[in-house]
Structures are given as structure tokens and as C-alpha cells.
């Protein structure tokens, strides 16, 4: 099943779908369409996402996700909370890579106050950021297998992810919700023995990546299920604001860790940004697999060069952020997550616009699911990799 053959086949499918939707439904065969609700309680969605799909036989004529089942109203809640309370709240948006949610918010507040975390805090922040990326994306690699029917990868993912979560819990106290970031630095320093433990865990993670690559990515059935499915051209990806691995899989060489100067330690490690020209489901999964390997290398290099010094900048106990507006976005595991913080100089932010990655990543699904088979809905959703908390905020 070379990808060209599947591309022709894909164009042919799109033609059939167009036919079906135009002629309303195939009248001679008297087949009347079927509206299938996939979700909100459905194994294929990472949480409560509902997809309304109108089918003609096994082919999707029209599909549209309807979200909002997980809407907790974060932007309204941030208006009545102080800055430490918002950090505790905000790491529940993308609950798999939760330390990565706190960082852009704290950076925005620090930019408003005009202070910077000391080098040691920046270093440890970047290490924990990459650890939460590994925890998030390694679960994706396992879950990818389950969506396509293979049961074993997900157990491998959970087994190796456990080590990373134990590391995060050892350092911050919380496995899923570390709440370790403070304006001006971190709450505490690393516990003793953290560095060598992390180095051992990174080795385990690398051989987990090799195992997943052998078990899943090399598998011809997996490739025939994902190559040429859900192709997103570059300009459509940019227009919809896709970000992270979904964008890099369509050939856009853009990574926020490298292309903007943030008070973090990414520029102290040399690492490579992976892209893939095809833009199909296989490309997205492949780019994420390489990114996990790249993260383990980043963490290894950063572990070598942690500067010594204070963990917290000179910050008053009660923090009043001066008036102003700031936008900071970082390369979160799911894509670009950004906070537009408007402050009027009192204890909490006046307005926080939370730009989460999965909201844009999923807004392309109606365009993408035209003329696609039912099992491919699951493949495309698995490759786009969203988390419900990220979509619904």
C-alpha cells in the first residue's frame, strides 16, 4: 500500500463524499444516511468529546465535533483569583503535561513585573518542562496503539511514564498537578539524588521509544492505516492555527523553544527540531516520537550544567503585578499554549486569555473528516492528539 496509491484512493473517496453530499443521498440504492454520534462517552475520544457524523454506509459525509462537556470556565475564574491561586488552577488545563501550563503564565507575570528567575530556577524549570512533555507525549504513543487496535503499547507507555511521574512527584510533591512555579522562581529546590535518578529514567525512556518504534511504527499494518490518511497541507494548517507536532508534520520548521528568546534554558542545550513533509497521520505520530527522544537528550544535557545559586528572585511576599498587558506562549507538549494576561495592578489578573493548543488543533476536524471511513475518524483524531481539558478550558 504505497502512499501514492492511498493518495489516489483518498482523492477518489473525497469525490464519492462530494457526490453523496451533493445528491443529498444515493437515491437509486435507496440508502438513507445514518447520523452516528461518536461520544461523549466513547473510547476513542480522550475525554468527553462528541462527534456528530452523518454517514453514507461507512463513509463520512459530514462530521462536526461538539465540545463543551468539560468547560470549566477558566477565564472567568481567573478574574477572582490571585496569582498563586491561578497557577494552582491553570495546571489543570492540560492535565497530562501540567507543569508546562504553569510556565507561560508565570513568565507573563514576570514579564509584567520586569523581573527574571535566577539562572538555576530557569534551568530546573526547563528540565521539569521537558519531563512533563515526555510524560504527556509518551502516553500519546501508547494510546495511539489502542486507537488502532494494538493493546500492548499502552501498557508499555504507562509503565515507563510512571518513572517520569515519580521524578516529578519527588521534586514537586504532586504527580499530576505540581504547582511548583512561583513568580520569580520555584517553590523549592531539587531533592538530593534527583540528577542521577533522572539520568537513569531517561535511558529507560529512550529504549521505550525504540520498543514503540519496533512494535508500532515499523508495523506494515500500522503504516497502511496511517499513511495518506488525514493529509493537512501546510497553508491550511497555518490558517487554522495548528501548532506543535501537527504543524511540524506538515513541513513548517517552527518551534517556539528555539525561535523566540524566553528566560528559559532551551538555548543552553543543542537539539534538533524534527519536521516531516507529508502532513498525514503517520507524519504527526512520527514527529512526536522523535520529539520524545529529543526531549530526553535535552534533559540529559541540562542535567550536566545546572548552575548553583538561589532558586527564588527577590520578590515581596504579597505580589501586586504592575498595570499592563503581556503575551507569552511556549511550546507545550500539545502545541503552542499562550497566556494574554491583562493586569490592573491588584492581587489577581484582570483578564487572562488562555490560548490552548488543542482548541485550534480540533477546529480543523470538520474540514478534515469529509469523505473518510469510520475507522479513519479514530486514526485522524488519535494523530491530532488533543486533550479535552485543553479544548474546553
Amino acid at each position, binding site marked *: 500500500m504505497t502512499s501514492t496509491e492511498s493518495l489516489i484512493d483518498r482523492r477518489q473517496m473525497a469525490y464519492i463524499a462530494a457526490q453523496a453530499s451533493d445528491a443529498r443521498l444515493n437515491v437509486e440504492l435507496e440508502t438513507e444516511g445514518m447520523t452516528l454520534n461518536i461520544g461523549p462517552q466513547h473510547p476513542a475520544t480522550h475525554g468527553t468529546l462528541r462527534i456528530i457524523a452523518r454517514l453514507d454506509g461507512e463513509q463520512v459525509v459530514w462530521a462536526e465535533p461538539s465540545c*463543551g462537556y468539560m468547560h470549566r470556565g477558566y477565564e472567568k475564574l481567573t478574574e477572582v483569583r490571585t496569582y498563586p491561586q491561578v497557577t494552582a488552577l491553570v495546571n489543570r488545563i492540560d492535565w497530562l503535561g501540567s507543569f508546562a501550563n504553569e510556565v507561560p503564565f508565570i513568565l507573563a507575570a514576570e514579564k509584567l513585573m520586569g523581573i527574571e528567575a535566577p539562572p538555576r530556577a530557569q534551568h530546573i524549570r526547563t528540565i521539569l518542562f521537558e519531563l512533563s512533555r515526555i510524560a504527556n507525549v509518551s502516553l500519546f504513543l501508547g494510546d495511539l496503539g489502542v486507537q488502532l487496535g494494538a493493546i500492548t503499547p499502552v501498557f508499555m507507555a504507562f509503565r515507563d511514564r510512571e518513572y517520569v511521574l515519580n521524578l516529578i512527584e519527588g521534586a514537586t510533591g504532586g504527580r499530576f498537578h505540581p504547582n511548583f512555579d512561583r513568580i520569580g522562581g520555584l517553590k523549592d529546590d531539587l531533592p538530593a539524588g534527583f540528577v542521577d535518578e533522572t539520568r537513569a529514567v531517561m535511558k529507560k525512556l529512550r529504549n521505550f521509544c525504540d520498543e514503540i518504534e519496533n512494535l508500532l511504527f515499523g508495523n506494515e499494518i500500522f503504516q497502511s492505516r496511517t499513511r495518506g490518511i488525514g493529509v493537512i497541507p501546510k497553508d491550511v494548517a*497555518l490558517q487554522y*492555527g495548528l501548532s506543535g507536532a501537527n504543524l511540524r508534520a506538515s513541513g513548517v520548521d*517552527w518551534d517556539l523553544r528555539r525561535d523566540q528568546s524566553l528566560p528559559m534554558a532551551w538555548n543552553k542545550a543543542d537539539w534538533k527540531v524534527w519536521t516531516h513533509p507529508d502532513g498525514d497521520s503517520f507524519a504527526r505520530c512520527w514527529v512526536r516520537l522523535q520529539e520524545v527522544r529529543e526531549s530526553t537528550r535535552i534533559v540529559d544535557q541540562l542535567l550536566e550544567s545546572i548552575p548553583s545559586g538561589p532558586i527564588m528572585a527577590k520578590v515581596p511576599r504579597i505580589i501586586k503585578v504592575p498595570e499592563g*498587558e*503581556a*503575551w507569552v*506562549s511556549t511550546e507545550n507538549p500539545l502545541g503552542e499554549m499562550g497566556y494574554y494576561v491583562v493586569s490592573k495592578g491588584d492581587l489577581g489578573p484582570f483578564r487572562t486569555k488562555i490560548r490552548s493548543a488543542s*482548541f485550534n488543533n480540533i*477546529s480543523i476536524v470538520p474540514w478534515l473528516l469529509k469523505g473518510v471511513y469510520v475507522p479513519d475518524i479514530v486514526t485522524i483524531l488519535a494523530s491530532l492528539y488533543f486533550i479535552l481539558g485543553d479544548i474546553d478550558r
Partner: protein
Amino acid sequence: MSSDAPVAEIPGDLLREGIVDGLRAHLGEALLDSLVKPGDDVWVRVRTDAWREAARVLRHEMGFDYFCFVSAVDWMPSPYGKGEDDPTEPTPERDDTIRQGYAGGETRLQMLARVTSSTRHVGVNVKCDVSDETPVVESWIPVYAGANWHERETHEMFGIGFAGHPDLRNIYLPTEFEGHPLRKDYPLLARMVKPWPGIVDVEPLPGGDDEEGDAE
């Protein structure tokens, strides 16, 4: 990095000044106000009727191909405060002057959007006022197809209409939900229902001596 040295000293951030000048060249006086923080970010405010025109210029002429987000800001301070007032005492008066943020503005509601260039790695925050009587703005969908969901969310959260939007249904809230939650005059019920445990009720010393030792 973003040291807030007085703007005059550092030579202006040429990249972002170039953006503002380019926009002024294309939009003329529709570009009302702009603010450049050197090495940090650039804010631009356009006239309300030039909202879609600004998007078209940014995307086709100036190469900002990446659509980041579209949202809105309600500048009126909330009449309810943080829900932490002591119900027994009279509600403290709050200043309800409306002060807009960067790049000014007159009205209470203001559109806020951000687009980035995926090649030059620089972003622009675009703002425009939304009049209080007829809160309607042109939709960005013909220029950025990704704006569809963002505009639906802004519509249901702020009540701003979008001319030219194919189906302006609620994206998060149930269809029969009235009111626009992110407006500041919409009460946050979670904080209304329960009295705040932080209200101090340590009774004064028995025996009624006069000093009012109520710990703040």
C-alpha cells in the same frame, strides 16, 4: 531580554516598527493607535469597520500566515469584586471607571486578536473597539478559516455579533443559555452561593474591654 529601559535609549525595535509602518501604509488612518515594546511585542488598534481589512492586509500583504486566536476583553471592573466581602457590612464602593489597556480605546468591549508570521517568528496583537449599542464586528473567516470556532466562543462569551459567520451557534454553553458569562457584569455564582470562610469572626475578649482587637 525585555528590560524595560526607557524606550528612547535603545534604538527602536526595527522589526516591529516596520510592521506598524507597513500597516499604516496599507490602512492609512484606519490604524488608530499602536504601541511597540522593543524586543517584546507590538499592539495595534484599528477602526471597527477596518477589522476584516486589517486581517486581509496582515495575511496577504505582510505575510502573517499563522492564525493565533481571536477573543475580546471587557474593560469594565466587576461590580461584584472578588466575592470576598463581608455580607454583614455595607458593600465597599469600587471605582468603576473604564480604563482601556495598551493602544487605548473608547468602548467597554474591545476585540483582541493575534496573528504571527511563521517565517519571521514575530506576532502582532490587533485590537478594535466594539460599540456598546451594536456590538457587531466583521467575521475573519474569509481571511483565516481557523477563526470560525474562536468567533463562536467570543460570541457566546461576550455577546459580540460577527457579520458573515456561517453558523454562530454556542460552542461551549448549552443552546438555551442566556447571558454572556465573560462579561464583568455577569456574576460568578460559585462565589455568591457560599459565604467566604476567610471572613474573620474571632469574637473580641469576653469582659467587653474597649480595645477592639479584631485581627484584620
